[in-house]
């Protein structure tokens, strides 16, 4: 570190090529930075965990420029270049940090021999049950054995027998024979979740991963151990034996569980989601996500999905429903219960609809307990979006008593509800029957049952869009699976409602066009920003005055309310 807090770069030589890397970078990361598919194979090293150095797969050759011990002068070869003193034995890349002038060989005969040896030892007691193993296709041992192994076994003795299906916790099953004792899961539980229940008991070939008797791996992050397990030892009880990973399509998405907005990948095949895993984003969730967030896709196939556009319970076309809604909204005395589960684009439309029908907008809070990591207090993915689009200008309320008074007094005649069950929020069914209700939502509930107009909407897995997370980071999600047949993306139907309210003809809009309008209209979003221009890792927006609002989130993995506020108020470049 230099005095101004930035990390200085050092130049090292990797396989004859000079590379400048930040000081302190280890060799695995440094080689990754070289690019061109260069990689130091490794099992136990994980960029977000401490270095254990126990798998020995990342052995490389290292040398330093030679100096005369007595005088300290550089020793030169015939060409006048400084000689490199190569270490006689290989060194592990994960625990070797780049130092000025360091030379590394990642592909020398000695390195190859080392990898071959390590691979052979790892495979001695490995069951080689890849044909039935869930990890096959994303298994580091499988990949590296193909690349660095000898291809046949010299081992004629009997392999070790260990437990094949140990229950480690409610969501994780352990196959001990496959475990290569890399200790990633042990370090993850201890260092990231602070729930130190895993450990290795016994020794030598009998070493076994276990929980302490009477304890379980049951924290809300247990499935991350399955993600980081380089082999098929830790498997998700839910995903176990369900699908071969190479059949699955991966789609970038955002976790809707809380305002953290963890970056995720949806793994689907033929319109069915099989699992959700975290996607690395160092500004949001590192490489982790909650177990509860992974289970959210189960609501896609739930029995109570809304699957038809209806008016008074009768199936209609989206056009009929939209024009019926327009008629109601034009009648005046409109109130809207908006949602922080809607995407930015939808909220942009709801804002337009609210303006054009002069509706008073309420938004209900969904607060829970935060865990200080990746589950924040605010259990909605897009409250910041509702604020930035101007849909609301205050933090949401816990319930809807002002709206209830409005309905009671007759000041509200039409209610547009987005994805909320207002009967549970202070508006009794009796009260609700006094007004005309337009319900937009993914699943049915007591409000939807009594609604005059029902507009089914798509879940996050079934549409494109963006959310704005706790740090005002705009992040986009993409369509992983098709929605229920005949259901259009929300913004298309909303266009059919919003345009006629301003006496315009509805356009056949695409998300690109919606984003042109958003970028033009919203101050906090750069005019030049396009839908396609939003990077996969998201983009930080300027919160402006909104940063002063007393948001519910407390300190968690990547968000510290105090520090965040200070960073926003400090002049740029400081």
């Amino acid at each position: 570190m230099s005095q101004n807090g930035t990390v200085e770069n050092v130049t090292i030589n990797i396989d004859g090529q000079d590379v400048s890397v930040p000081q302190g970078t280890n060799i695995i990361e440094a080689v990754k930075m070289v690019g061109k598919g260069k990689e130091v194979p490794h099992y136990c090293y994980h960029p977000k965990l401490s270095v254990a150095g126990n798998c020995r797969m990342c052995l490389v050759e290292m040398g330093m420029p030679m100096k005369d011990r007595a005088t300290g002068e550089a020793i030169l070869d015939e060409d006048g270049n400084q000689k490199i003193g190569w270490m006689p034995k290989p060194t592990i890349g994960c625990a070797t940090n780049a130092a000025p002038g360091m030379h590394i060989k990642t592909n020398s005969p000695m390195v190859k021999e080392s990898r071959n040896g390590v691979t052979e030892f790892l495979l001695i007691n490995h069951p080689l049950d890849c044909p039935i193993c869930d990890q096959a296709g994303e298994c580091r041992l499988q990949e590296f054995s193909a690349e660095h192994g000898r291809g046949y076994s010299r081992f004629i003795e009997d392999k070790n027998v260990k437990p094949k299906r140990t229950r480690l916790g409610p969501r994780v099953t352990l196959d001990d024979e496959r475990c290569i004792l890399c200790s990633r899961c042990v370090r993850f539980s201890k260092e990231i979740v602070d729930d130190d229940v895993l450990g290795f008991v016994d020794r030598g070939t009998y070493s076994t991963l276990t929980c302490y008797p009477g304890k379980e791996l049951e924290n809300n992050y247990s499935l991350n151990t399955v993600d980081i397990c380089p082999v098929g030892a830790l498997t998700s009880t839910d995903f176990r034996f369900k699908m071969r990973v190479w059949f699955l399509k991966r789609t970038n998405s955002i976790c809707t569980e809380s305002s953290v907005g963890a970056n995720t990948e949806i793994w689907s095949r033929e319109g069915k989601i099989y699992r959700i895993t975290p996607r690395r984003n160092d500004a949001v969730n590192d490489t982790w996500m909650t177990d509860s967030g992974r289970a959210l896709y189960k609501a896609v196939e739930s029995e109570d999905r809304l699957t038809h556009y209806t008016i008074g319970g009768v199936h209609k076309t989206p056009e009929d429903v939209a024009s019926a809604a327009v008629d109601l909204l034009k009648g005046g005395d409109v109130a809207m219960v908006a949602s922080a589960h809607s995407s930015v684009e939808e909220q942009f439309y709801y804002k337009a609809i609210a303006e054009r029908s002069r509706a008073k907008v309420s938004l209900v809070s969904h607060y829970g307990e935060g865990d200080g990591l990746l589950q924040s207090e605010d259990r909605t993915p897009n409250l910041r979006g509702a604020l930035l689009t101007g849909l609301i200008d205050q933090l949401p309320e816990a319930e809807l008593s002002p709206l209830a008074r409005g309905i009671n007094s007759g000041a509200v005649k039409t209610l547009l509800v987005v994805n909320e069950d207002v009967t549970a929020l202070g508006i009794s069914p009796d009260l609700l029957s006094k007004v005309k209700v337009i319900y937009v939502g993914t699943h049915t509930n007591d409000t939807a049952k009594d609604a005059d107009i029902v507009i089914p909407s798509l879940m996050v897995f079934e549409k494109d869009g963006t959310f704005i997370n706790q740090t005002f980071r705009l992040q986009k999600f993409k369509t992983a699976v098709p929605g229920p047949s005949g259901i259009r993306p929300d913004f298309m139907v909303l266009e059919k409602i919003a345009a006629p309210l301003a006496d315009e003809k509805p356009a056949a809009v695409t998300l690109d066009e919606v984003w042109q309008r958003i970028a033009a209209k919203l101050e906090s979003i750069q005019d030049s920003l396009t839908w396609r221009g939003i990077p996969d890792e998201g983009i930080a927006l300027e919160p402006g005055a909104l940063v002063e609002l007393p948001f519910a989130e407390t300190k968690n993995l990547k968000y510290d309310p105090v520090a965040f506020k200070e960073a926003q108020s400090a002049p740029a470049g400081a």
Partner: protein
Amino acid sequence: MNLKPETTEKIDKLVPRYPTKRSAALPLCHLVQEDQGYLSNEAIEWIAQRLELEPINIQEIVTFYPMLRTEPTGKYHVRVCRTLPCALAGAYQTCHRLEKELNVEVGHTSEDGLVTLEYVECHADCGRAPVVMVGEEEYTDIDPDKAGELAAKMKSGELSDGMPD
């Protein structure tokens, strides 16, 4: 945990001698085992709590080292050396004789709870091999016949259990 007062005193003196509490884990395991005879789950949890660790951390140590036991021994804890000098001098025959006389398999405790018979590595008295320890008492030059005599004394209860008072 009912530790003897002297053990508690030793532990209280020992723990602050280490810069981090975790470092005292192994000595504590030995002290508690000396006191209790073995390390029960309760003992493991007690040590973990004393050192502000999780029980699994202690469990890892206890299962790693063969000298730490998780089950109580019989009245006589018999340890037969099988490192090279003793092995050459006939430790295996000695042990087989003990197995037969005491009706116990090596590595186990006899059903009546009288003897626990184990192989161990060097007792550091190779000049007088084979060496057998009963509790903390050392018996040297134990050929199978002498082993038979030892076994008889154990069965009659004449032999000291070799445990310090």
